[in-house]
C-alpha cells in the first residue's frame, strides 16, 4: 500500500523497561492506514489499545519499531499539529466559553482572531451546538460537552483524528445519536480516524476496518473489513450483514484471552 497516512511497523511497547515491574503492552504491531479510513481498535481491557493510540499520537514513544505519520515521524506530525484528539472525558477548560474552548487549538496555531471565530462558529453548527457559543462547559450536558470536544479536535482540520473511547461515558441513546453524528462528520470532513472502543456495535457501525487485539501483550489478532454501504443510518443496525460482522468480531474477541463480556 503506497497511499498511507499512518504506518506502524514492528511496533513494540514495554513499560518500565529494565525494572522488575516491566510490562510488555504491545508486541510486533504492523498496521497501515489509508487516508480517509475509519479504523476501530477493539480488544479486552488492558490490551494496549489506548497505548497504541497514544503511540500514534506521539504522546508515548515506542520501545521498538517505527511509526510514520503523513510521511514523517510521529513527533514531527505532532509538532506540525496534524492531530486532533478526543478522550473519554471532554477535558474542556472550565474558564473558557464553548466558543473559546473550540478556538484553543487555533490559538496555538496562531490563526487570526477573526479566522478563529468564524471557524469555531462553523464547527458549532457542524456538531449542532449553535446557540451555545457563549455557554460555559458546566452549563452543558455530558453529550453536549463531548460534541464540543469533537468540534475542538476538528478545529485545525487534523490529518488524523485520534479518539479514545469518546462515547464511553455516555448513555446508550446519546451514544447512538453521537455515532450517527460522528459518521456524518467523518464523511463531510474526509478525515482519517483511529477510534478506540469497547462496543462491537459501535465499531461495526462506524468503521471501514476493525482491528481486534489480544489480551496483554497486545497483538493484532484479526482485521475485519466492514463492507457495509455508506452512509450508514439507524436502519444499518437491522441490516443482516451488520449481524454477521458483529458475530465475526465477537468470535475473534472470544479468542482473545481474558475477554469478559462487559
Amino acid at each position, binding site marked *: 500500500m503506497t497511499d498511507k497516512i499512518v504506518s506502524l511497523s514492528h511496533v513494540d511497547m514495554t513499560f518500565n523497561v529494565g525494572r522488575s515491574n516491566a510490562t510488555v503492552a504491545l508486541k510486533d504491531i504492523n498496521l497501515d492506514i489509508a487516508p480517509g479510513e475509519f479504523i476501530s481498535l477493539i480488544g479486552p481491557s488492558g490490551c494496549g489499545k489506548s497505548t497504541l493510540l497514544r503511540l500514534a499520537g506521539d504522546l508515548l514513544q515506542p520501545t521498538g519499531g517505527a511509526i510514520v505519520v503523513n510521511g514523517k515521524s510521529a513527533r514531527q506530525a505532532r509538532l506540525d499539529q496534524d492531530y486532533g484528539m478526543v*478522550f473519554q472525558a471532554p477535558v474542556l*477548560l472550565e474558564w473558557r466559553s464553548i466558543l473559546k474552548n473550540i478556538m484553543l487549538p487555533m490559538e496555538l496555531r496562531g490563526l487570526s482572531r477573526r479566522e478563529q471565530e468564524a471557524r469555531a462558529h462553523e464547527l458549532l453548527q457542524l456538531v449542532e451546538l449553535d446557540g451555545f457559543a457563549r455557554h460555559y462547559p458546566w452549563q452543558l450536558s455530558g453529550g453536549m460537552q463531548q460534541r464540543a470536544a469533537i468540534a475542538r479536535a476538528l478545529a485545525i482540520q487534523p490529518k488524523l483524528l485520534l479518539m479514545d473511547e469518546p462515547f464511553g461515558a455516555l448513555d446508550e441513546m446519546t451514544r447512538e445519536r453521537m455515532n450517527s453524528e460522528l459518521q456524518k462528520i467523518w464523511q463531510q470532513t474526509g478525515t482519517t480516524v483511529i477510534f478506540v472502543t469497547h462496543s462491537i456495535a459501535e465499531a461495526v457501525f462506524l468503521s471501514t476496518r476493525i482491528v481486534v487485539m489480544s489480551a496483554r501483550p497486545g497483538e493484532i489478532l484479526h482485521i475485519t473489513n466492514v463492507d457495509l454501504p455508506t452512509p450508514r443510518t439507524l436502519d444499518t443496525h437491522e441490516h443482516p450483514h451488520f449481524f454477521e460482522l458483529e458475530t465475526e468480531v465477537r468470535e475473534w474477541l472470544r479468542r482473545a484471552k481474558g475477554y469478559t463480556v462487559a
Partner: protein
Amino acid sequence: MKAIQRNLPALFLFVAVLLLWEGAVALFAIQRFLLPSPSVIAVAFMDNIDRLIHIGWFTTKEALGGFAIGCSAGILVALATSRWTVASETLMPFAIAANSVPIIAFAPILNNWFGVDNPFSKMMIVAVIVFFPMMINTVRGLTAIDPTMLELMRSYGASERAILRKVRLPNALPYMFSAFKVAATLSMIGAVVSEYFGGNRSALGVFITQEAAQFRFQNAWSAIIVACMIGLTFYLVVLLIERLTIPWHSSVRNT
C-alpha cells in the same frame, strides 16, 4: 433588597449582642478597665476619630506593603518551583513546615534588623507571614492539572510556555484567591501584632498597647474596632475582585 433580607438575621444578632453587652455592663456594674460598655467605646471612638484614622492608615500601609511583597514573592517562587520539579521537591517540604511555624515570634528579630520605628520592619514581618500560604496554594494550582488536559495540549504540540499561559495559570487563579483571602486577614493581624513589640508612635498596635498600659481601655477598644474594620474591608475587597476575576469558578458562580 434581597441582600438586605438575607443578612437581616446576622444584623439582628449583631444589635442583640451590643444590647446584651451594654445591659450586662450596667447590671453587673463591671468596672470600665475590665470591659467598657459599647456606648463608652463609641464615645471614645468619636473623641479620637482623627487620631484613629491617622494611625489606622499608617498600619494599613504596612499591611498592604507586606501583602504586596509577600504575595509577589510567593507567586514568583511558586512559578519557579512548578517549572523545575527538582526545586519543587526540595523546597515544598520546607515551605509546608514553615507554614506551621508561628512566624510572628520572629517579630522582635525583624524589628531589630530593619529598625523598630521603620514601617518596613512590619512590612517584612507581614510579607514573611503571607509568603508561605501564597506559595503553597499557587504551586498546588499550577500543578493540579488533569493529566488528560496536558495530553491534549501536547497533542497540539503546545510548548511548556503555552501550557503555562493557557492552562496552568488560569487553573491556579482560584487557588491563588483562596490564598489572597487568607493573606488579607493575616496581613492586618501581622501588622498590628508586630507593632505590639514596639514601633512608630502613630501605629495602631502601639496606640493599643500604650492606651491599655495607662488604663484607658475604652481608647484601646476603639482602636481594636478600627483594626477589625480595616481587616474586614481588606477581605471584602479581595472577595469582590475574586468574583470579578473568576466568575466561572464553582466557588463563585452559584452564589
